[in-house]
């Protein structure tokens, strides 16, 4: 049973009750996992070569579990700042549903288990990139960057992009240029997506002392950076078609969605709203960015699998 202990240094609330399975599941950050599963599955579908459905399922499962392990370790390390933010205060550790040691052990076991399993069932190249993705998210993003630099999201975005590399490597055993282009798309998509959120959650981040760009450089600079990264993102999404790696079905989708993304980014850059309730353009961009990535990868899969 959880030990009852008030941890004043970490800000964690008391562990109050024997943890339920739902508390462990919540540690995995299931919402983040959905995006990871989707992008990794798309990369596996697009990668040349065939994989037995059982092995493909195993690959996706390992990538999802590894993402969950990284999420658990992130929550273990960040319990103190999670307790200060409204959005995260109800997570299992700050809410006192789990003890810190349980979350740490859970994350380590799942992380090592998923890496070993993908290595044994598929190949060790995929296992290597999976281990890199966990370590990058936990060590580079969570421990090193998040509390030190406003560029945390930019470099940390790579952690969310590694699953496509793992997915591709699971099928082919290598990581060609196209796989790294998909990596680049997610890498460049992350800053506009998270900064749009950070704009209307700025007060929460400031309260927790997290140096997000709106906190350290202000709202106008964040809006300028969103536009800058959008300008880099949209051409990269069209590049696979221009380089002959994808057909025009994907290219057309990328151009259309890219134009919409740019239009919303321009709206955000022109916005002068300071109160979260007035930040309509920012909320619109945040929601659209999720749809944007899903449609983009969906179009890529359709382009590769459905069209002759």
């Amino acid at each position, binding site marked *: *049973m959880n030990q*009852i202990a008030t941890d004043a240094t970490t800000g964690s609330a008391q562990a*109050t*009750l*024997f*943890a*339920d*399975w739902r508390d*462990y599941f919540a540690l995995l950050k299931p919402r983040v996992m959905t995006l990871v599963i989707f992008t990794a599955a798309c990369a596996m579908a697009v990668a040349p070569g065939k994989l*037995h459905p*059982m*092995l493909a399922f*195993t690959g996706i*499962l390992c990538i999802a579990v590894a993402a969950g392990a990284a999420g658990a370790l992130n929550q273990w390390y960040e319990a103190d700042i999670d307790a200060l933010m409204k959005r995260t205060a109800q997570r299992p550790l700050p809410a006192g549903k789990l003890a810190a040691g349980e979350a740490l052990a859970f994350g380590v076991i799942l992380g090592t288990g998923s890496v070993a399993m993908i290595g*044994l*069932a598929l190949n060790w190249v995929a296992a290597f990139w999976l281990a890199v993705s966990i370590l990058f998210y936990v060590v580079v993003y969570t421990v090193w960057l998040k509390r030190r630099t406003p560029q945390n999201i930019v470099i940390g975005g790579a952690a969310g992009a590694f699953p496509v590399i793992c997915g591709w490597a699971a099928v082919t055993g290598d990581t060609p240029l196209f796989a790294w282009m998909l990596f680049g798309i997610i890498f460049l998509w992350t800053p506009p997506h998270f900064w749009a959120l950070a704009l209307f959650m700025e007060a929460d981040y400031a309260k927790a002392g997290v140096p997000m760009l709106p906190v350290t450089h202000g709202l106008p600079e964040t809006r300028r950076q969103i536009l800058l990264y959008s300008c880099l993102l949209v051409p990269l999404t069209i590049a696979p078609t221009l380089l002959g790696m994808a057909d025009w079905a994907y290219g057309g989708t990328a151009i259309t969605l890219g134009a919409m993304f740019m239009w919303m980014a321009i709206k955000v850059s022109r916005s002068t709203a300071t109160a979260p309730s007035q930040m309509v353009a920012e909320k619109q961009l945040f929601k659209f960015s999720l749809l944007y990535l899903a449609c983009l990868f969906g179009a890529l899969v359709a382009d590769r699998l459905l069209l002759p």
Partner: protein
Amino acid sequence: MNPDPANWTDAERTAFYARRESRNRALGILLFVLVALFFGITVVRMTDQINAAPKPVAAPTVPAQ
């Protein structure tokens, strides 16, 4: 919740048992799924290796004199 189980109320004790049961059930299902998964992976990998192995060449038959 009281830190000492000896001081728990009936409601606290019931909640504790309910949570422990749900966790044990989830763990049981997880273990079963893992066993099925490892079995499936083993079958697929072994089938791949059997299919990839060189087929034995039949010796030419000599017609009876």
